[in-house]
């Protein structure tokens, strides 16, 4: 083969691979040349790998749909158990019996919460619910988050301090899901911080991002534990007695990632835990 033909051949081969990467490869002419044979094999290879990928994707989807279906189907029975449990608790006489019924209700509530989180998770992951970020005012979102936590906050006598809350702040987010994401963080802070302590919600604007810091006076996290917090079903061994299923922060992270933001956690020197949510503002 002379140099010209060889160069030409390599050009064609390179083009074949480029087209395969772009997903646009088609066979050109059919003839008895080696190149044409190669083209046919290349086509066959590409279509089988596409088939494989599609099969894997399909399998993944059906598993997620299954999770979604199961979660959905157990919702009604759980609601019924709760209802009958409450009736039972009212009718029971002895204090020992009442205590048992209370345990029953508490566990059922926990189960209900777990199922609801699973539904949200599977919906997010199967993209049945799309996160649709749009530029809008930030303060109303945070007001709603704080309002959702008000009951727990008052019950524990916790004070919420707001710094940097300026009405003109804009960010790019999906209101419903972002409220969920940030509330999960506030809910954690409310859960782990001491009674009669303070939670600071501070907003820091940058050019491209706006940062929402939620800082509590709780036990803090270690550097080793920080990345684990966002894993599905992770529960800190230090607080196994606290209620929760370990899905909240995982959900928060997924939601924020879908709208081009992110979340991080640190333990400041003065103690407590600080979560920072970064929302895109362009």
């Amino acid at each position: 083969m002379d140099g010209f033909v060889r160069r030409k051949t390599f050009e064609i081969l390179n083009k074949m691979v480029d087209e395969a990467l772009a997903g646009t490869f088609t066979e050109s002419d059919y003839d008895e040349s080696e190149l044409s044979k190669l083209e046919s094999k290349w086509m066959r290879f590409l279509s089988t790998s596409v088939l494989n990928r599609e099969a894997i994707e399909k399998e993944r989807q059906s598993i997620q749909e299954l999770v979604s279906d199961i979660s959905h189907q157990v919702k009604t029975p759980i609601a019924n158990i709760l209802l009958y449990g409450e009736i039972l608790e009212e009718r029971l006489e002895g204090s020992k019996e009442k205590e048992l019924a209370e345990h029953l209700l508490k566990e059922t509530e926990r189960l209900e919460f777990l199922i609801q989180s699973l539904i949200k998770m599977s919906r997010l992951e199967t993209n049945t619910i799309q996160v649709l970020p749009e530029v809008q005012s930030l303060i109303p979102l945070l007001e709603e988050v704080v309002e959702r936590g008000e009951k727990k906050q008052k019950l524990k006598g916790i004070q919420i301090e707001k710094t940097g809350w300026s009405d003109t702040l804009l960010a790019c987010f999906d209101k419903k899901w972002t409220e969920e994401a940030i509330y999960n963080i506030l809910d954690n802070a409310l859960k782990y911080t001491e009674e009669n302590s303070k939670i600071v919600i501070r907003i820091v604007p940058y050019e491209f991002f706006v940062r929402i810091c939620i800082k509590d006076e709780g036990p803090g996290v270690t550097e080793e534990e920080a990345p684990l917090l966002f894993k599905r079903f992770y529960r800190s061994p230090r607080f196994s007695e606290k209620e929760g299923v370990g899905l909240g922060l995982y959900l928060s992270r997924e939601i924020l990632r879908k709208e081009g933001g992110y979340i991080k956690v640190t333990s400041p020197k003065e103690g407590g835990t600080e979560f920072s949510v970064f929302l895109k503002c362009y």
Partner: protein
Amino acid sequence: METILQARDLKKYYGSGENQVRALDGVSLSIRRGEFVAVVGTSGSGKSTLLHMLGGLDRPTSGKVLVDGKDIFRLKDDALCIFRRRKIGFVFQSYNLVPVLNVEENITLPVELDGNHIDTMFVQEIVQVLGLANKLGSLPSELSGGQQQRVAIARALAAKPAILLADEPTGNLDSVTSQDVLSLLKVTSEQFGQTIVMITHNEEIAQMADRIIRIEDGRIRGESYE
């Protein structure tokens, strides 16, 4: 997740006898695909030497660096140079943009040097994420420091490198701009699954990463694992 970058017992000694400096004294680490890792250390701890080894910019006294399972120091200098251009994206403290080329040309230059076609869609996406869409026609001299660093990041990403190595990427920026640049790095790693190794002396900056590796006197001192 699969390991993309591995260092095995890396040593780099300068000089000999009493004047011998052990810049790296037996460093082993492994980084998985899609991870955002920070290497923290004071100046003189050996962190920059480590980054130079990981990126194939300098050869170690002994030890190995494996990228995608391949021992990069078994390559000859010419091959190592091409390897770097194809597999590693660099972002330094100084932006190293070509002053006579506009933003778009700066971003696509390395890909074109390699004789490859530009993946226009991908470049558009990067430009969008890094907030450079309305600056493509500008010259580097018309941009602020933060904007120039964003162009440098876009340039490093355009070639779809296996690993992005960043050496004090915010060293020349004020704290507000630094936060933005770091946020963009973080978002890049999340959205494009880009593996990033960032060197810094600043603890707070390191906190942005998924994992922190601490280096001191040429050795790894502490590591927080995911």
